[in-house]
């Protein structure tokens, strides 16, 4: 027997970790340094802002919201007003939607709800190392029952928005939440990849509406739409006895492996409705009353 490890290298980042919990600072610092990053720490907002104002350049700030003397949200607002601001990932035990939405409004890159598995911080830092991570989201509405965003068409942004939206839906039963998260991500990925051509200058508009009895997501992409009868490269056109047929079409067309998104999404939610051009889609999940 022989073991062999294959993994993608993670670029080293310069990180400022801001948390008043000395133990957590130590654990996260060790973990991030072990992953090859350079980490400095601050115990409160003023100390962090002083370090950032000293001309020290950080790629990333990991920021606790519940800081003494100055709220992490206030620190976030000030950090984002700096010239060439670092990317900010917020960490908090405050699970109110108001805090999350304010973090979205102030351009937090990602939101980690405490307690989180320490190893997840390495994963989020890795994701934040992508070239498009500093792109901004335009916040049209940041109400818990109506979140509406306009965002650049990149895969990183799809991940980021999915993360925020699913934090908002944290009180759903796990199975419902997982199904909705998967369906939402598939459609958003379709929108930025096929509608937006992965062009950060093009924008996708996302609305998330929540009522007592349903979740409704609307995704409008900047593309021209598509003709469902020409989707031979998608699994939804496969005969029941040949679930791989579309892969041959994709190979002939030089497309990456895939094409299962619509088939998966249709099975995960209750309704999937496209407009006539098929560049806007509504995804609906009905909830049990009070769900």
């Amino acid at each position, binding site marked *: 027997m022989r073991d*062999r490890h*294959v993994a993608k290298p993670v670029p080293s980042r310069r990180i400022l970790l801001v948390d008043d919990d000395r133990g957590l600072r130590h654990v996260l610092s060790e973990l991030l340094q072990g992953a090859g990053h350079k980490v400095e720490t601050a115990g409160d907002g003023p100390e962090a802002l002083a370090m950032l104002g000293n001309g020290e350049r950080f790629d990333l700030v990991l920021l606790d919201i519940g800081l003494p003397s100055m709220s992490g949200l206030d620190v976030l607002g000030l950090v984002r007003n700096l010239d060439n601001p670092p990317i900010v990932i917020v960490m908090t035990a405050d699970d109110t939607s108001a805090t999350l939405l304010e973090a979205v409004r102030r351009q937090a890159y990602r939101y980690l709800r405490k307690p989180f598995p320490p190893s997840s911080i390495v994963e989020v830092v890795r994701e934040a190392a992508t070239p498009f991570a500093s792109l901004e989201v335009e916040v049209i509405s940041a109400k818990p029952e109506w979140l509406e965003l306009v965002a650049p068409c990149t895969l990183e942004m799809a991940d980021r928005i999915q993360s925020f939206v699913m934090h908002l839906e944290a009180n759903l039963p796990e199975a419902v939440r997982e199904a909705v998260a998967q369906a939402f991500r598939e459609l958003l*990925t379709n929108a930025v990849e096929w509608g937006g051509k992965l062009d950060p200058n093009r924008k996708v508009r996302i609305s998330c509406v929540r009522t007592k009895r349903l979740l409704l997501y609307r995704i409008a992409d900047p593309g021209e739409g598509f003709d469902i009868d020409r989707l031979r490269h998608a699994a939804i056109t496969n005969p029941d006895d040949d679930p*791989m047929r579309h*892969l041959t079409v994709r190979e002939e067309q030089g497309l990456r*492996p895939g094409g*299962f998104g619509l088939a998966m999404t249709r099975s995960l939610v209750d309704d999937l409705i496209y407009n006539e051009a098929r560049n806007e889609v509504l995804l609906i999940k009905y909830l049990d009353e009070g769900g």
Partner: protein
Amino acid sequence: MRIVERRIGDVTILQLIGRLELEDGDVVLRDAVNRLVASGRVKLILDMKEVTRLDSAGIGMLVSKYLTARRGGGVIKFLHPTERTDHLMDITKLTTVFEIFDNEEAAIKSFSTPVAGV
């Protein structure tokens, strides 16, 4: 995604750890399977137990590499899918094609039975 590779006789087990999604893990899997098939190691088991996230692109890569192995005269079998992975394979009807095992020993032994042609 990280892959840990083990060899037991002529069977290769690839333990997939992390996300298998568009531009995150899919290329790592593609390269690992292509390398093995090119070197003649075509009896492959993908251990899915530690796949933390899987999307349609990841499913697509599983199917694509399944076909790569078949064209190379071998086969990919699947081990320990999580409930979520199993559900996604089910709704995409891949459970009708893939051989899926919950037991590593049984998966390895299954290679001793002849593989049907493509």
